[in-house]
């Protein structure tokens, strides 16, 4: 059975729409989702293009399995050149958007050009229409979605939208769908804003064919059982991602006060169980919700209990909101965390980035690099909840000198603030790090230094490294589908074997992003969750395509190399502190001072770190500068890119 799936090219300047089928050979090579997006970006973005210019393609997609009868294939992927980093822009969100796009007849959209006034796309059962959005401009992310539903008179319409942050071209604005699903990283909402594109609204009642429906259904049951029986997912289903924050903070892996500490002490009021109590009180015992087709249900629903926003309904908070509005600014109030979470969802801004930016500014303020003059009277010290929330407003609306400067992103802001402010910016490739502290965990440090979209945990983090798994178990996981007999260590404070683990995780995460599956359904937080060996059946039953585990691995590696090629083309070099595979000097110079006894005193060893990078490149078949060798490109069939087949 042929997979009849389509891609649409939409030019907002000329208002032209072209629809094409996606050839099967492309599936074999790039699978779908993020991998296919990487192909499209490498082929459609002109070298050195302005991220906010009309030629930057905004690519929106669902994965190969999206909307099929496989578990948790709800993820939407968005790619473009990033206005934050000038390199690869890429983000991924849950919810119900990508499946609806599939039922509306499309798996990939390539949006270029720039509308002369605000517009939104209306995609409905194979039709694509460009509609006026002037009445939506200025609305927050949820109001926009409800207004579109009312205009189209269909409450089932799903929209991917920007809030005011995207309109105001905050370089780390999100795309949003539903209440809290955010494609947060690398400023894809800013790219939407630059195109005057307020929303992409979709509604579909068309079939997504299933190759072997009975087998797919039975297999899905088995698969779901494997996923929900994992302990991490049971905890996740009760407490959501804050559980990771709680556990990490317990031993000292949570970045606090920008980078001064690796733990927030006496954090009882905002620990996951405390947040869960509030959710239970305001929404009842069954307050967890989830994405399409997912039985993990990792998101909490809550109402803010007190303060300016008392009574407001929202969803979350996730790990990042506890970091952004808790540990980083050193605020210990649940009200602040829940309010901050609400604000970023409404404005449509990356909570991770905005939290890091404000914490950075707070440290600069305490150091005297920023003063009351620049903050225009805001007392921007750590622990000032009011100042924190005020800065969220100021950044998203670009109010005041500092709000405006911080809205441009870390590196441009450091240039404007001057002095040695850059030294305190905890970034890689121009993007701030997750609110985690990797000084005690070299494998995790290698992950953020080399992640393709800038400092990021969801590209290659070997999170199970923290579980001290016995070596035979590690070998079982990391030794397939490609044999590996090099060193592996159960010690997460060690350097040995980590480059292979990071390389393996990089491929596994690429594969799930290509399939459109959520990362909680693979080897991210749980060692017993599905990986390469488990996917061929799911793919076959649902799509009829035959892949071996090794073929999935190869495709993932191919797609990762495409992202690398894009980054190299746009200026990445190994040791560039602003665009390279590097870490802030504080990782190497300042030891951890809090947490578990074995964490105290830990910092990253420069030489060993460099050896890790060498090894990591080596596993990829990259040279010492991190450039794929011609043999590698040939092995992966990338020697002729860009080939413009799509």
């Amino acid at each position, binding site marked *: 059975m042929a997979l009849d799936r389509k891609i649409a090219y939409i030019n907002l300047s000329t208002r032209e729409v072209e629809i094409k089928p996606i050839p099967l050979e492309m599936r074999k090579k790039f699978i779908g989702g993020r991998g296919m997006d990487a192909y499209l970006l490498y082929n459609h973005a002109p070298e050195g293009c302005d991220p906010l210019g009309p030629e930057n393609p905004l690519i929106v997609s669902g994965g190969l399995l999206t909307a099929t009868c496989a578990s948790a294939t709800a993820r939407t992927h968005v790619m473009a050149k990033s206005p934050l980093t000038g390199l690869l822009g890429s983000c991924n969100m849950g919810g119900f958007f990508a499946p609806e796009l599939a039922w509306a007849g499309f798996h990939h959209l390539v949006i270029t050009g720039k509308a002369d006034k605000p517009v939104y796309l209306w995609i409905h059962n194979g039709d694509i229409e460009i509609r006026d959005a002037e009445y939506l401009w200025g609305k927050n992310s949820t109001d926009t979605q*409800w207004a579109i539903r009312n205009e189209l008179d269909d409450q089932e319409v799903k929209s991917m939208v920007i809030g005011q942050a995207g309109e105001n071209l905050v370089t780390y604005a999100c795309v949003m769908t539903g209440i809290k699903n955010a494609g947060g990283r690398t400023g894809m909402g800013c790219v939407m804003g630059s195109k005057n594109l307020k929303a992409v609204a979709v509604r579909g009642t068309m079939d997504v*064919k299933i190759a072997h429906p009975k087998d797919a259904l039975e297999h899905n049951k088995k698969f779901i059982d494997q996923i929900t029986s994992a302990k991490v997912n049971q905890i996740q289903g009760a407490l959501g991602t804050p559980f990771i924050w709680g556990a990490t903070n317990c031993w000292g892996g949570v970045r606090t006060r920008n980078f001064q500490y690796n733990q927030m002490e006496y954090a009882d009021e905002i620990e996951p169980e405390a947040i869960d109590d509030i959710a239970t009180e305001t*929404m009842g015992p069954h307050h967890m919700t989830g994405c*399409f*087709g997912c039985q993990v*249900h990792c998101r909490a629903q809550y109402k803010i209990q007190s303060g300016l926003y008392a009574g407001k*309904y929202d969803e979350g908070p996730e790990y990042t909101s506890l970091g952004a509005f808790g540990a980083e600014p050193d605020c210990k109030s649940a009200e602040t965390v829940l309010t901050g979470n609400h604000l970023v969802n409404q404005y449509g801004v990356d909570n991770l980035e905005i939290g890091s930016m404000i914490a950075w500014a707070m440290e600069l303020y305490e150091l005297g690099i920023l003063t009351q003059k620049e903050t225009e009277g805001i007392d921007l010290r750590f622990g000032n909840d009011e100042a924190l929330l005020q800065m969220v407003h100021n950044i998203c609306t670009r109010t005041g000198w500092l709000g405006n400067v911080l809205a441009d992103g870390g590196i441009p802001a450091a240039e404007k603030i001057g002095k040695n402010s850059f030294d305190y910016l905890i970034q890689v490739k121009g993007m701030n790090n997750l609110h985690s502290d990797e000084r005690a965990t070299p494998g995790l440090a290698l992950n953020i230094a080399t992640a393709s979209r800038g400092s990021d945990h969801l590209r290659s983090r070997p999170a199970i490294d923290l579980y001290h798994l016995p070596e035979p178990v590690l070998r079982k996981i990391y030794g397939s589908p490609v044999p590996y007999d090099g060193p592996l260590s159960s010690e997460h404070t060690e350097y040995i074997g980590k480059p292979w683990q990071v390389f393996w995780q990089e491929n596994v995460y690429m594969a799930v992003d290509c399939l459109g599956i959520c990362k909680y359904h693979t080897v991210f937080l749980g060692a017993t969750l599905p990986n390469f060996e488990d996917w061929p059946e799911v793919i076959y039953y649902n799509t009829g395509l035959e892949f071996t585990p090794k073929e999935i691995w190869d495709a993932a590696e191919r797609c990762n190399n495409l992202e690398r090629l894009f980054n190299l083309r746009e200026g990445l070099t190994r040791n560039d502190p602003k665009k390279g595979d590097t870490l802030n000097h504080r990782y190497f110079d300042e030891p951890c001072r809090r947490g578990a006894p074995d964490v105290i005193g830990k910092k990253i060893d420069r030489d060993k770190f460099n050896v890790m990078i060498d090894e990591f490149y080596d596993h990829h078949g990259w040279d010492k500068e991190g450039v794929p060798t011609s043999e590698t490109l040939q092995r992966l069939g990338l020697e002729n890119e860009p080939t413009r087949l799509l």
Partner: protein
Amino acid sequence: MEKFLTVDADKCTGCRLCEQVCSVMHEGVSNPAKSRIQVVKWEQEGVYIPVICKQCEDAPCMNVCPVRAISRDPDFGFLKVDQEVCIGCRSCVGICPFGAMGYNPTTRQVFKCDLCGGDPQCVRFCEVNAVEFVPVDRVSAQKKRRGAARQSAAERQATALG
């Protein structure tokens, strides 16, 4: 004993897995528009309510059908549509007070929940048990219990406050 599908909307996470598996089970395709169960949402407040056929005793859909395409299954008691007979007039779609009757634009016929012939897939897949398949007498017993529990909790609270 006849069994019924019962819905506890409080427990529903809104994931719509039930819609997915229902359409795959009955139509061999993934398409919630063709699912017999449908989750109605008030996303603004986080309220999700799965809507499904009640297999009414005095069923309006059966009564209104001009060609008698809808009849009761003698073994399981559910109402089913005879696709050979259905003329696609959609009278039943219009009259069902719950919106539980669907219309398939591909086949141009109506469809409704048939309890998957006795093993409802929505129940099988819903891990939070928001839809359950229980004997008739247990339904009202359960409902009574839950209602009573709520009442006694309210009373306890009132006493505590008082």
